[in-house]
């Protein structure tokens, strides 16, 4: 039928949709397991696997020289995680301090050592070249994945205008992997309402959007900024505001609204208590460290339904690392009277007659505040529902996929999307869309690699590739180390 309609069809055993870091680590694993580039295609609307990640990190105030929030041995360019980023940066920058920090000091006597964004991107580029990533990349916008009657799947894609004689092309494959990242940003309801009502996208910004104009404005005259949210992005934005204040001798006032204001250690019992204070919940990384391989990973793997949902709730909640530099800056800000954190729920935001913004805030103790500011930076990082993405909406509606206990896509322990099996084929998903599954840290570098390994091992079981044992793994590691093709 497809052929009759004149739509070109390509046969390719494995396609991965997304083309971000999730797709990249999956094809990286499979290439190292021995799958040739001719057997796989990456369907994507971006040119490099780090493009979206770099855009988001840059907006949220992490340019290439700054450090991201990720463990030293979570390397998406290296399936072994050895040598760690700390070892590499110590070598490259001739700085032994990194190794001392990672081996002896973190996290008790110093902050966690974390890599520079630039280190991550540079290494991704090296690995992408090594595995022939761009030989597998096909640009376009994927519209849907559907089961095929004879087994496997059809993937329908719109190629970029002018690159194909037809508006659509179809890929017929036994295996499909979906890693399309966050379905989209979701704005706080009161800010969404403000933007729609007043058509003002300049004074109310989301931290994940480009908002450099805020910092530029503040360099030209004294101003007030309302920061909302209690996560890592809020920390980053505060750092930028305080750094600029110090560097350019500015008089910026910062009003920081926490919906949940954490005043100290919190948690249900002594074996489950997270540190906190001054509004924040403190945690080194975006999940407790043992989700990537320790106790929490092992526990979650056994849980279903309500028990799983509860476990996610227990370990969840917005948090940020307790970095020494940030603590000093906030302390100085409180003492100097230019940093004002408090608990509150914003009921609405309105413009003032002189072009500023007034937030109507109600605190839990009943206090009403109406801070006036030049800008509001939304750092809450809410994510949209998976059904906002048409690929998932289609899978949920037509292909038997369903939601997990926290509302996202339910996947098996090996990341096959439950309910979507088709003959001898399999449909996998990894990343943010699968949060709430048997493995919790899905939307992280190491989480994507955990998923990729599960998928690669499952594909080996199905005969698509050979499972990798210690000898082949070691041989492949040497190829990585000497930058030789797989």
């Amino acid at each position, binding site marked *: 039928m497809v052929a009759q309609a004149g739509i070109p069809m390509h046969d390719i055993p494995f396609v991965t949709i997304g083309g971000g870091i999730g797709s990249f680590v999956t094809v990286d694993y499979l290439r190292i397991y021995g799958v040739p580039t001719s057997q796989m295609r990456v369907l994507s609307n971006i040119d490099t696997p780090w493009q979206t990640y770099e855009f988001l990190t840059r907006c949220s105030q992490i340019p290439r020289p700054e450090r991201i929030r990720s463990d030293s*041995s979570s390397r998406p360019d290296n399936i072994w995680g050895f040598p760690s980023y700390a070892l590499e940066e110590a070598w490259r920058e001739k700085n032994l301090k990194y190794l001392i920090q990672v*081996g002896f000091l973190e996290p008790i006597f110093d902050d966690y050592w974390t890599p520079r964004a630039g280190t991550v991107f540079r290494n991704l580029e090296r690995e992408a070249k090594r595995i022939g990533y761009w030989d597998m990349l096909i640009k376009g916008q994927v519209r849907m994945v559907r089961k095929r009657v004879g087994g496997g799947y059809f993937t329908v894609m719109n190629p970029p205008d002018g690159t194909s004689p037809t508006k659509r092309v179809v890929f017929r494959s036994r295996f499909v992997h979906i890693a399309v990242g966050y379905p989209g940003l979701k704005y706080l309801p009161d800010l969404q309402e403000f933007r729609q009502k007043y058509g003002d996208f300049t004074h109310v910004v989301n931290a994940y959007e480009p908002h450099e104009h805020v910092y530029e404005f503040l360099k030209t005259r004294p101003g007030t900024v309302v920061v909302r949210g209690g996560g890592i992005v809020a920390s980053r934005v505060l750092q930028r505001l305080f750094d600029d204040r110090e560097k350019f001798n500015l008089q910026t006032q910062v009003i920081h609204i926490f919906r949940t204001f954490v005043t100290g250690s919190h948690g249900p019992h002594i074996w489950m208590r997270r540190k906190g204070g001054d509004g924040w919940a403190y*945690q080194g990384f975006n999940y407790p460290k043992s989700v990537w391989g*320790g106790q929490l990973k092992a526990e979650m793997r056994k849980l279903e339904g309500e028990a799983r949902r509860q476990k996610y709730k227990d370990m969840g909640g917005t948090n940020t690392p307790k970095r020494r530099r940030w603590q000093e800056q906030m302390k100085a800000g409180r003492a100097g009277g230019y940093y004002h954190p408090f608990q509150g729920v914003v009921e609405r935001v309105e413009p003032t007659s002189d072009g500023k913004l007034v937030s109507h805030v109600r605190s839990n103790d009943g206090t009403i505040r109406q801070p006036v500011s030049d800008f509001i930076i939304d750092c809450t990082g809410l994510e949209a529902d998976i059904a906002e993405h048409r690929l998932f909406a289609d899978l949920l509606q037509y292909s038997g996929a369903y939601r997990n206990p926290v509302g996202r896509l339910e996947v098996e322990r090996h990341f096959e999307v439950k309910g979507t099996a088709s003959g001898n084929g399999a449909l996998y998903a990894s990343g943010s869309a699968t949060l709430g599954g048997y493995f919790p840290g899905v939307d992280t570098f190491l989480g994507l690699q955990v998923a990729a390994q599960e998928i690669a091992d499952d594909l080996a079981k199905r005969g698509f590739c050979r499972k990798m044992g210690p000898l082949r793994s*070691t041989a492949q590691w040497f190829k990585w180390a000497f930058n030789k093709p797989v």
Partner: protein
Amino acid sequence: MVPTLLGRIQTRIFLLATVGVVITALLVPILPGLDGPLSQNYRTAYLVLAAVAVLGVGWEFVYHFLMQFRWEKDWPTVFGLVTLVPEGLLLFLLLRSGAIGIIDPAPPASAFWTLFIVVWIGVWLTANGPMRVPFIRWRFRGGRLL
């Protein structure tokens, strides 16, 4: 690697049986304070290594218990190093007191501590890096090899 209880025990036994055995083989001929035939010294050294493994299983239960007080249920890299102090001291005192009957006579302090510390550091360094090269699933399974 962030360990589970079973992972801790398996990793300890595996690394002592590989890295530990090799380091001991290389080290025994040059250990300070030892006289007597080399075969006797090797026998004593490997029995000490076995004692580290056996007592270590008990220690791992203690560490696992202490880890429960940590929100992240993690075990920072440096903990894996400094635990050599209590473990070394306990084993040394047990040897001194004659509680481990099959290791008789107990090795002199200089030989014991040299061997113990070098093996410990070798195992610690391997566990924090090179171990991941042959065993790609090990770190995602809390240190389990089986």
